């Protein structure tokens, strides 16, 4: 057989077409010969297992479909899974849901790979020195009870990702029974600064955005088609927006320092100097000339010349945007992760919200959101502030018992936190985990969780669309592994240790869930319906639609307190901005062990299975770097090495490394692929909210002398096809906006 050595040997020599055909012919013949007698027929050897008992609708070879909820991100898309012979095979969107209307993104599709993943934890594991030994659940529960005895409430910490629905209620009750208030909710990537700015401007954290009603969308780095808030829903609204109102196609302008998937779809993409999004927003308000009062006073200083100098956007562009926004109304202006990721992120977001208000969009394309009438089930949100508080507590040795669920802080915490070292100071660490990820590896006790396709639950999405809804999560098939448990079941068992009497009526989480839903049958739209009928109906639909409560929206974005920082001097030692890229498929890296996500090429660079450093071709030429060079990217906190990809869609003063890769644990498809830029993030915080300013890290790059072939799907840059350019390129300055309008 050809081993890699001989391939390399061959590759080192001229290998002409004739040789290639020879090898191809011979290997083809060899394969054909080996094919004789080597078929997949397994008469008398393969076992064919039948059902013991089968429902009438279960016919081998015919699929049955069940509704549930996607758990790959927290947008809350409803899914419809095809199950055949007791195995779930394929997930699609549930058309009943107004969030995703029967559609599902690639990340959601990969949910089956989470379920069937060969690297899932299958048994409770207890640390024994540097090794783990499998133990029984009884022993695990007893151990937790033992470790909790005599521990005061303030010495217990529970770190979790975003949780909602009945699980959140149950978790809250458990923490109450432990007498602790230390619930840290941490999502590594969350629009927390924008949420805070929205509360100031509109009175709500996340208003309902109506892309479908807008004629122009001006997005400051909000990747709403890829990874921002509720991308499947936004994509559908975007399609409406592109179809247009009265036949007038909507125009999308994207302003950001690093091109996102949304930026690539924009009619006009503007590279802005990192961090100056707010300046541009004020500059546009000035150019519009529509502002009055203190807003007019505020933007007076932001004349085109200054704004253009500070942001790098030409005066002509500012004029064109202002003209377009004046001509077409309503529009929609969005502040995304690129705008909020700086120390003055709140100010950026406030300036952008102010622009919305000046344009009169509030109430037209920015609507009041709807929420479920059960506030205790609403999703808990959190970002780096929570992690920082936990980290500080850990560093001080405050916590004796720490729980971790649905978060991987050892991987996602900024390097400057030294979270791994601090985590080690906790007395007893329990991780509820699907994989032995970086955090689970540091834990003392790892409890294996059911996959989302095996577990019961309810989920309340943060971003509601038409009316409120509670999503039902139900098992699509039996447990794959006998010893995994649902998070709800585990919590119920733990809470019974403290409040046995109160919870003795609930045999398992299913019983709890059923009881809780039926108890509120009337409020959930099932008044007068029999219990079984209502429950079966609920499971069949997978969604409970409710008349939600509408929070009123206020338009009091004001100029008060809005101060944008002066131009920052370039840092001599660390001249470049590092932009951690958030991709639609990998997000914060919790799903990296799903090989479809590693294999599907990044939409902008087409790179697979590896990380890369995006550098502007001009900057690269200046530094003498070409594609495939391995460079060392160094910040004040640390450094990583990765291959270079020359990318015209990035500001010359910035570089970008995608997050999500660079695991050193988790599983065979995640471990050892790429680098983890979280590791080199400096501890710079957003001034108003205290969240991590993800885009504030400055870096320098140096060549290592190594060079690799970048594995990507695209052809060479600027390649010709049939003697012509694949797509004609026109720089944004050359585009005649009057033709677009």
């Amino acid at each position, binding site marked *: *057989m050809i081993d890699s050595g001989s391939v390399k040997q061959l590759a080192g020599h001229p290998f002409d077409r004739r040789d290639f055909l020879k090898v191809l012919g011979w290997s083809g013949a060899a394969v054909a010969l080996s094919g004789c007698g080597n078929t997949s027929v397994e008469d*008398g050897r393969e076992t064919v297992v039948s059902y013991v008992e089968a429902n009438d609708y279960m016919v*081998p070879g015919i699929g049955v479909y069940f509704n549930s909820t996607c758990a790959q991100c927290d947008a809350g898309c409803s899914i419809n899974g095809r199950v055949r012979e007791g195995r779930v095979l394929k997930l699609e969107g549930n058309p009943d849901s107004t969030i995703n209307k029967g559609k599902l993104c690639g990340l959601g599709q990969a949910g089956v790979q989470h379920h069937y993943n060969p690297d899932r934890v299958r048994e409770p594991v207890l640390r024994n020195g540097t090794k783990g030994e499998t133990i029984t659940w009884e022993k695990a529960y007893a151990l937790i009870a033992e470790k909790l005895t005599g521990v005061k409430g303030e010495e217990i910490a529970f770190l979790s990702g975003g949780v909602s629905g009945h699980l959140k209620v149950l978790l809250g009750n458990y923490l109450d029974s432990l007498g602790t208030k230390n619930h840290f909710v941490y999502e590594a990537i969350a629009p927390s600064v924008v949420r805070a700015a929205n509360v100031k401007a509109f009175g709500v954290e996340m208003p309902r955005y109506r892309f479908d009603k807008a004629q122009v969308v001006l997005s400051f780095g909000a990747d709403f088609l890829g990874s921002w808030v509720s991308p499947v829903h936004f994509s559908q609204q975007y399609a409406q927006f592109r179809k247009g109102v009265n036949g007038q196609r909507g125009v999308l302008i994207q302003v950001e320092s690093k091109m996102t998937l949304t930026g690539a779809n924009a009619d006009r993409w503007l590279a802005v100097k990192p961090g100056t999004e707010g300046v541009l927003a004020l500059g546009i308000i000035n150019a519009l000339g529509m502002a009055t009062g203190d807003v007019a006073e505020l933007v007076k200083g932001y004349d085109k010349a200054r704004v253009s100098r500070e942001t790098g956007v030409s005066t002509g562009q500012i004029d064109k945007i202002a003209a377009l926004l004046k001509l077409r109304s309503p529009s929609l202006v969005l502040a995304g992760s690129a705008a909020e990721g700086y120390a003055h992120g709140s100010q950026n977001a406030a300036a952008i919200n102010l622009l919305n208000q000046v344009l009169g969009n509030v109430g037209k394309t920015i609507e009041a959101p709807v929420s479920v009438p059960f506030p205790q089930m609403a999703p808990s949100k959190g970002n780096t502030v929570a992690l920082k508080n936990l980290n500080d507590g850990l560093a001080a040795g405050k916590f004796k018992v720490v729980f971790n669920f649905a978060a991987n802080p050892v991987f996602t915490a900024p390097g400057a936190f030294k979270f791994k070292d601090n985590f080690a100071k906790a007395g007893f660490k329990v991780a509820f985990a699907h994989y032995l990820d970086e955090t689970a590896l540091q834990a003392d006790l790892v409890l294996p969780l059911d996959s989302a396709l095996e577990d019961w639950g309810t989920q309340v999405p943060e971003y509601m669309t038409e009316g409120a809804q509670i999503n039902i999560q139900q098992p699509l098939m039996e447990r794959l592994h006998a010893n995994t448990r649902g998070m709800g079941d585990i919590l119920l068992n733990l809470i019974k240790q403290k409040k046995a009497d109160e919870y003795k009526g609930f045999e398992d989480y299913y019983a709890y869930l059923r009881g809780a839903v039926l108890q509120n049958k009337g409020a959930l739209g099932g008044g007068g319906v029999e219990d079984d009928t209502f429950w079966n109906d609920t499971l069949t639909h997978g969604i409970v639609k409710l008349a939600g409560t509408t929070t009123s929206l206020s338009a009091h974005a004001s100029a008060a307190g809005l101060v944008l920082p002066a131009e920052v001097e370039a840092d001599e030692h660390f001249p470049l901005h590092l932009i951690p890229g958030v991709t639609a498929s990998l997000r914060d890296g919790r799903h990296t062990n799903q090989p479809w996500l590693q294999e599907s090429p990044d939409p902008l660079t087409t790179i697979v299975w590896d990380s890369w450093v995006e550098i502007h071709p001009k900057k690269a030429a200046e530094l003498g770097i070409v594609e495939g060079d391995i460079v060392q990217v160094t910040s004040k906190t640390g450094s990583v090495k990765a291959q270079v990809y020359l990318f015209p869609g990035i500001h010359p003063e910035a570089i970008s490394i995608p997050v999500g890769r660079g695991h050193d644990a988790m599983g065979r498809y995640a471990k050892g692929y790429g680098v983890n830029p979280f590791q080199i993030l400096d501890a710079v915080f957003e001034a108003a909210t205290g969240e991590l300013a993800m885009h504030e890290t400055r870096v320098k790059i140096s060549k290592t002398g190594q060079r690799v072939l970048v594995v990507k799907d695209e052809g060479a840059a600027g390649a010709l096809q049939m003697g012509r350019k694949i797509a004609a390129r026109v720089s944004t300055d050359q585009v005649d906006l009057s033709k677009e309008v």
Partner: protein
Amino acid sequence: MYRFLRFPILLVGLFLGVSSFAANNSQPALTTEDSLGPQVQQPIEFPHNRHAGLKDPSDPAKGGMEINCQYCHTYARRSAVAGIPPLQKCIGCHQNIESVKDKPRIVELFKYWDAKKAIPWKKVHDLPDFVRFNHERHIKRFVEQQDRPVQEACGYCHGDVKEMTVARRQKSLAMGWCASCHEKDHPVVAQSGTPIAGQAYWYSFQKPAAAVDANTKARGPNDCWQCHK
């Protein structure tokens, strides 16, 4: 200077490697001379003859019970794969048949049932993964449209099951064998005289015969895609 040697050596190595792999891979022969498949040991020696065999008019305890194949193999008319009847099906009858309850095979059967465990039957009829045989269409065609007796229709491929205990493959199930039937001219009128609507057209890509009568014949599908999807 060794360049001219490199390829022959590589190719010989390649060939040896692959052929040794093929030689090591001992498989039961696909077909024996009489097209019989291998004798398969089953966890319970299921007596097809007792269930589907002809009744013995002189002694009802001895002969078969003439149970329709589709009574147990109920999935065959509903799905591409025939499947194996669920254990529940066996028990449905046998819990009421006291006379055989102590027979070793039935005791064994109830052991599986009590443990709620599936019986690990061995596959007797298997096709390569690149072949998609569809039971449902064949039963629709022969049993429902042409009114052929069920045992005859199933027997085209499965042989005379009513004479067997544990089923054994009777036909080669190779492509040539399938084609030998698909190439035959078949009547497009049911035995009862009913014309089979549209079938002649679909089965041989002809225009439907203007007047279908008992003499009109058509062939089974002959495009590759029908089985190799």
